[in-house]
């Protein structure tokens, strides 16, 4: 049993070492300050700034869009809806199931929406697909923390004459803020790392997108496309992208852990 635990942990170590061993020699200043020269697939000069900025734009946009939907949903489920209402069970169940839907399906669905509106592969399309992808993750994570807000706190607020909206925004959200931020971070991490949902929808380009309707490069796709070339210089760009992506994920995961710890310290039990 200890052996199997060690095998599982060593797979994590192996993956991280591979990424670091391959990625660190490929890193240099040009890599993170320049866009690829002469095409991302063939050009040997330049870096991956297009993918870094593209990914940050995309993940930020998608996270923002997802917050706009999931926060009201979570507040409805926990503050407004009656305790045993069917809609609570149904929404939670549906979101749990949605969580399991593969990201390629979100990509394809996003693509059909884009065809419907006549959009081409663009930052906007990618944002919509990724927002749908992270929506269940973010909503369920927020739901878990807001559920822990003690009911007495709500009642105290009502008894002072506050409406449910005021209670939701000024008491519940404030009490659960660290937890909500954790949920947002988790969703951001998931969004920035996902490739299958943007492969149809965001396109890929050598340039930094200057409008929502331009195609955007993303780190996961930069890894995927550039690893497939025969040129070591181009493959280096893939390794560097993998390293940057992994570091972003590590930072997010550590930050969310710290936030969770800080959050649970103040929870009234």
């Amino acid at each position, binding site marked *: 049993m200890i052996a*199997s635990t060690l095998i599982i942990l060593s797979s994590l170590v192996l993956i991280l070492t591979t990424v670091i061993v391959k990625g660190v020699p490929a890193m240099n200043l040009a890599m993170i300050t320049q866009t690829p020269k002469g095409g991302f697939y063939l050009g040997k000069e330049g870096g991956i700034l297009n993918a870094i900025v593209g990914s940050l734009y995309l993940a930020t946009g998608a996270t923002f869009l997802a917050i706009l939907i999931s926060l*009201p949903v979570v507040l409805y489920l926990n503050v407004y809806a009656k305790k045993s209402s069917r809609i609570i069970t149904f929404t939670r169940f549906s979101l749990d199931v949605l969580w399991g839907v593969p990201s390629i399906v979100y990509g394809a669905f996003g693509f*059909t929406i884009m065809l419907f509106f006549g959009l081409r592969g663009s930052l906007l399309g990618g944002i919509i697909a990724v927002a*749908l992808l992270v929506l269940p993750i973010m909503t369920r994570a927020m739901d878990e923390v807001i559920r822990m807000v003690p009911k007495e706190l709500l009642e105290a607020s009502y008894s002072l004459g506050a409406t449910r909206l005021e209670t939701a925004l000024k008491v519940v959200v404030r009490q659960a803020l660290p937890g909500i931020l954790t949920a947002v971070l988790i969703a951001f991490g998931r969004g920035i790392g996902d490739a299958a949902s943007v492969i149809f929808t965001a396109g890929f380009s050598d340039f930094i997108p200057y409008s929502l309707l331009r195609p955007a490069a993303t780190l996961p796709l930069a*890894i995927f496309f550039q690893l497939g070339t025969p040129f070591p210089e181009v493959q280096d760009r893939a390794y560097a992208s993998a390293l940057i992506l992994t570091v972003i994920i590590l930072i997010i*995961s550590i930050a969310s852990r710290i936030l969770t710890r800080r959050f649970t310290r103040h929870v009234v039990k």
Partner: protein
Amino acid sequence: MDKRLLKDVLAERFMLLLTIFAGLIVFVMAIGLYQRSRPILAIKSLSELLFSTSWHPLRKEFGFLPFIMGSLWVTGVAVIIAIPLCLLTAIFLSEYAPRYVREWTKPLIDLLAGIPSVVYGVWGVLVIIPLIKDYIAPFFGTFSSGYSVLAGGIVLAIMVFPIIIHVSLEVFRTVPYEIREASLSLGATKWQTIKHVVIRKAMPGIIAAIVLGVSRAFGETMAVLMVAGNVAKVPSSVLEPAYPLPALIANNYGEMLSVPLYDSALLLACLILLLVVLFFNVIARVVLIRVERSIK
């Protein structure tokens, strides 16, 4: 009416609307994909699409069998590798490990869940592929390019570790301490208690955990796309390449609009994927809800 109350009521309506929207996304997705795949369902029978091995989009022959079998092979290998490792780890962490080991291990396993699938793919290409090509295949006296069912299975297994372990740990935690103590007080050893009491009690939950892992593996795209080899043929051994369903969809997005019916066929593939995964997920979630209720 008071302005504050009006705001409150308006907010309620708005939030209710969004909640209904969020709850219905699953159905909207299924209906949307079904609409787009209707053209191909109109001219081909479903059984022909599902059980034909001939995949020639230019000749309008869309047989999904090689891809479905590819998915099943890769998922099967992943599950065979993952189940024993995950269950033993979960048992160790929940029953044997001291507290601090558990506290240290769980974040690391969660970290494994956070690593993007492309990074798994890169790792597979750099480590697993050469390993299979240079060591495993020659060991069995055959040749393999390394891009194979086995490579896909290994990478997928690692990707589903966190899900299976996480859910099994939750399930083990729901097994009441009293029945463990009852068993120990009757003279059973710790292992006997785990085998006959804990695991038996936790069985439905463990199965649900595995089913969730299977559905994740079934739909995983990028990592598999990078290591499975992508040859449209039903594989006959684990060292042969496979072409799983998600990889097919992701690989052909570029040309799908230029060939008639091709996009419809690929979106049908998406629909199949969605329905299979939904089916697995609904079963697993229902079981888990039952488990959760049984302890209240």
